[in-house]
């Protein structure tokens, strides 16, 4: 027993020692786990918390509705149209090809469409909707809804797409939208959204930020396979703001109706600088950009020599021709190189050294003062004046009238144009000759001016103020500067000089012998004052001149451009109109009648108070010219 007891004691003491050691080891191991947990949960807790949130939360941007563009009457000229789409959810459809077969019998799908749908279904998770067909018509929708039981997984929902109800009539002003380019993305996260559009041209581009609005966001809780469990929170975005522009779409249509191919016209409110109409023929339908431009369509646009995509009122560059003579006259008066009454004899040509410059009147105008020189558009008078003034002072006066400068109109890509000077020529490495100055006196030569800048010149002549052409009346209901005549500073040209030039322009239209005698306004509409211009696109050689050539015999693209600028009513100028007919041959023949018609349309349009001023800018914006005075 004793041996057994001793034996037992020995075993027990060994066991106790080892058991305690083991227990200590176990507790140590559990302690290690505790340390490990502390490290994970406390020391690195924040990092893992972030990872868990990233797992769980999927933030999605919500596109705000794009603001509308309204005309001065509040009519929508760029809005959103509902776009009914058919979507398929693979999970609900189960047998996607079979469902698509059924769909095809109801609304035919092309092979490429079908391939795209099946590709997207394969690529995306089974509960993500895939677009089957966009821009469904009412009939197609009705057919889909009627067959809904046979179309499991197909649903119809509505998105928006940009719509331009005025189609080609306002395309160059409103511009268009298109999916953002790679380079745009990054600037605004909103642009990464599928289906988002950015303004690519015109007002859509200039006011893109305001129209676009700010993206809202939804934070969604998703599970491990990406299915949305619930919406966590939603930050409302800012819907795009409406932009109201000064163009009157009805007048715009009327103006465009007067314009043939190759004709551009601008109608300004002479007092405020607001663009009332701005037309270029030919134009394009901006709605085409919504659903994507086919390459055939693109080719037809780019191969058209009339460049339908280009707004020629802001991007076409022309010499002003005789329409520039008022500026030369004012420069002469300012430079005091002559008096208004000083007469210059026109024998039909002007000799400088051994170079002969011709007047358009082959046998000469005889002796003319300034008023007469403008009225008859005598070239010799202005050759002489230009020689006296010098090109730089002419150019300076031209710039004061808004030519060759940035007019800051809200149409991106607008050309500044070129008002030639001695320095400009030198910078080209060429000398400036006196002959150049003489030619520039009649608006020919190196000038590159936009119709818009000529319209601006006319408005400034009419008002004596440095009005700038602009399109925006209000953004998001807030009026913009420049809608009141007093907002514009005076040009600083003596009223006496301006009156002289204006009277000469009146004579052009209203006096016997004026170059635009045919452009008189019918009774009751006030009187028109204007100036014609005909600019050569090809030099007429002496030989041709002596043979007594006829312009009509030249190919069309060699014929001169026809220009006409005018304002009305003469006594109280309100509107300025500029028309250019490319290769129209004669300012008085081709451009002046159009200018007169446009002016009649404009006066008629605004004679009566046709509409209340824009609702949200009621106090700030006076109604367009004329409607306050009956």
């Amino acid at each position, binding site marked *: 027993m004793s041996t057994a007891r001793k034996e037992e004691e020995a075993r027990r003491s*060994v066991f*106790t020692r080892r058991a305690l050691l083991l227990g200590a080891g*176990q507790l140590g191991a559990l302690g290690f786990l505790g340390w490990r947990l502390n490290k994970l949960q406390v020391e690195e807790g924040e990092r*893992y918390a972030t990872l868990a949130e990233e797992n769980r939360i999927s933030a999605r941007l919500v596109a705000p509705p794009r603001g509308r563009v309204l005309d001065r009457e509040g009519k929508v000229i760029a809005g959103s149209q509902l776009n009914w789409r058919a979507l398929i959810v693979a999970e609900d459809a189960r047998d996607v090809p079979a469902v698509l077969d059924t769909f095809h019998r109801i609304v035919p799908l092309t092979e490429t469409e079908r391939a795209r749908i099946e590709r997207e279904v394969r690529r995306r998770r089974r509960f993500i909707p895939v677009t089957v067909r966009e821009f469904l018509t009412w009939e197609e929708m009705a057919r889909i809804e009627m067959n809904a039981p046979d179309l499991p997984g197909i649903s119809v929902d509505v998105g928006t797409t940009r719509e331009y109800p005025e189609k080609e009539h306002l395309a160059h002003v409103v511009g268009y939208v298109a999916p953002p380019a790679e380079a745009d993305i990054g600037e605004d996260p909103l642009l990464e959204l599928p289906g988002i559009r950015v303004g690519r041209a015109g007002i859509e581009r200039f006011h893109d930020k305001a129209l676009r609005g700010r993206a809202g966001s939804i934070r969604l809780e998703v599970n491990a396979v990406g299915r949305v469990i619930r919406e966590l929170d939603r930050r409302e975005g800012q819907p795009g703001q409406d932009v109201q522009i000064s163009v009157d779409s009805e007048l715009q249509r009327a103006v465009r109706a007067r314009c043939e191919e190759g004709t551009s016209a601008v109608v300004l409110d002479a007092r405020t600088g607001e663009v009332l109409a701005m037309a270029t023929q030919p134009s394009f339908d901006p709605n085409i950009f919504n659903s994507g431009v086919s390459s055939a369509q693109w080719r037809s646009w780019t191969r058209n020599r009339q460049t339908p995509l280009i707004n020629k009122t802001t991007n076409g560059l022309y010499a002003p021709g005789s329409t520039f003579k008022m500026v030369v006259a004012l420069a002469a008066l300012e430079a005091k190189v002559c008096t208004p009454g000083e007469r210059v004899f026109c024998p039909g040509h002007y000799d400088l050294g051994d170079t002969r410059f011709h007047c358009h009147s082959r046998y000469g105008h005889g002796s003319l003062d300034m008023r007469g020189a403008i009225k008859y558009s005598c070239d010799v008078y202005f050759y002489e004046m230009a020689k006296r003034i010098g090109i730089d002072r002419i150019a300076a006066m031209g710039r004061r009238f808004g030519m060759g400068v940035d007019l800051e109109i809200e149409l991106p890509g607008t050309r500044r144009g070129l008002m030639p000077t001695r320095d400009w020529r030198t910078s080209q490495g060429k000398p400036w000759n006196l002959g150049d100055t003489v030619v520039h006196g009649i608006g020919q030569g190196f000038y590159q001016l936009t119709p818009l800048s000529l319209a601006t010149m006319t408005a400034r002549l009419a008002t004596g103020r440095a009005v700038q052409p602009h399109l925006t009346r209000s953004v998001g209901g807030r009026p913009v500067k420049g809608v009141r005549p007093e907002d514009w500073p005076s040009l600083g040209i003596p009223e006496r000089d301006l009156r002289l030039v204006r009277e000469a322009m009146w004579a052009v239209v209203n006096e016997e012998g004026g170059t635009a005698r045919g452009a008189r306004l019918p009774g009751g509409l006030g009187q028109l004052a204007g100036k014609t211009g005909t600019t050569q696109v090809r030099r007429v050689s002496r030989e041709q001149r002596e043979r007594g050539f006829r312009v009509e015999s030249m190919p069309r693209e060699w014929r001169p451009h026809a220009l006409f600028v005018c304002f009305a009513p003469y006594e109280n100028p309100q509107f300025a109109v500029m028309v250019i007919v490319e290769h129209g041959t004669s300012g008085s023949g081709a451009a002046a009648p159009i200018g007169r018609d446009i002016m009649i349309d404009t006066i008629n349009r605004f004679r009566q108070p046709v509409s209340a001023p824009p609702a949200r800018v009621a106090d700030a914006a006076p109604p367009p010219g004329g409607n306050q005075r009956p």
Partner: protein
Amino acid sequence: MMLREPATYERRLLMRQHSFGILEKLWQIPWLFVLMLCGVAAVGYVALYSAGGGTPDAYASKHALRFGFGLVIMLSLSLVDIRVIARFAWLGYGLGVALLVLVLVHGNIGKGAQRWIDIGPVQLQPSELMKIMLVLGLAAWFHRASWERVGNPLFLIPPALAILVPVALILKQPNLGTALITGMIGATMFWAAGVRWWKFAIGAAGVGFGAPIAYERLHDYQRARITTFLDPESDPLGAGYNIIQSKIALGSGGMWGKGFLQGTQGHLNFLPEKQTDFIFTMIAEEFGLVGALGTLGLLALVIIFAMLTALRCRHQFGRLLALGLGMNFFLYVFVNVAMVTGSIPVGGVPLPLISHGGSAMLTVMMGFGLLGSAYVHRDAEFAAARE
């Protein structure tokens, strides 16, 4: 004093032997320990309630039912005389091995391994049961071993075989994790019985030699587990996904947790197998470090109780049995928690009494029944060990 002491000892022993009525035994049952187990099971209920998506229907109510059933088994076993258990220990061991063979022949396949057999409504994983039976068998073997015999290498051959046979059978399933755990339990029994250190060194050398050969024979998924353990981020969508998501869930729980039913990783299914192997992660995510350490502490108390019982026992069988069962439970806890914290390879080891699943619950409660019996009969007198 020296003379009186054996007398009181004998007397008390005699008294106990004769007065072991059912009431006396019920009184002797370690109710504090039972309370601890109930506490652990309650933690499991709460965690499974959450894992079931905020309802007891999915897992929690079944868990409670199983625990109740397990508790009945445990209490019943606690009342069985330890000497009876010792006598039938080898029978139990034999049964365990027989079931292991059976599962290889007729078992159901889970995750590429034959692991369980259906016994009526209960699925039984014989490998779980085997660990208990191995402890039982080895305790019985070493109980009768004198000091000299333990020192005799020949005496150690039968118990070594008793370890190797089930380990080999479990490896064949194949279930590497459980095989390793079974081997470790066997080694622990050897060590507690007093086998010399250097003999372990020989054994360890043998394992070290055999490991590369074993690795060659491992299944691809088992090798993947080891490689992804070494670098979980190497395969973030494949085998490493579980570990990464578990660590994210744990870490994002922070100090105080996200709150009951608020664990995003678990409820949004980022966490794999959240009701079974990764239940601890669920707890740690929703209740933070505090909840995780609390749970770990409660489990540690269970282990400590087993150790105290082992130290308190007056017979080698009870001592070895309690220590082995404690080690078994410890290994469950350690391997599971180490696994979910990304400390060791993922091995499909559940957290006993907390994870959803019948087999582990049943076998662990069975083990605690044996432990209870050892506690109740801690002073029982065995017939003298035969020399």
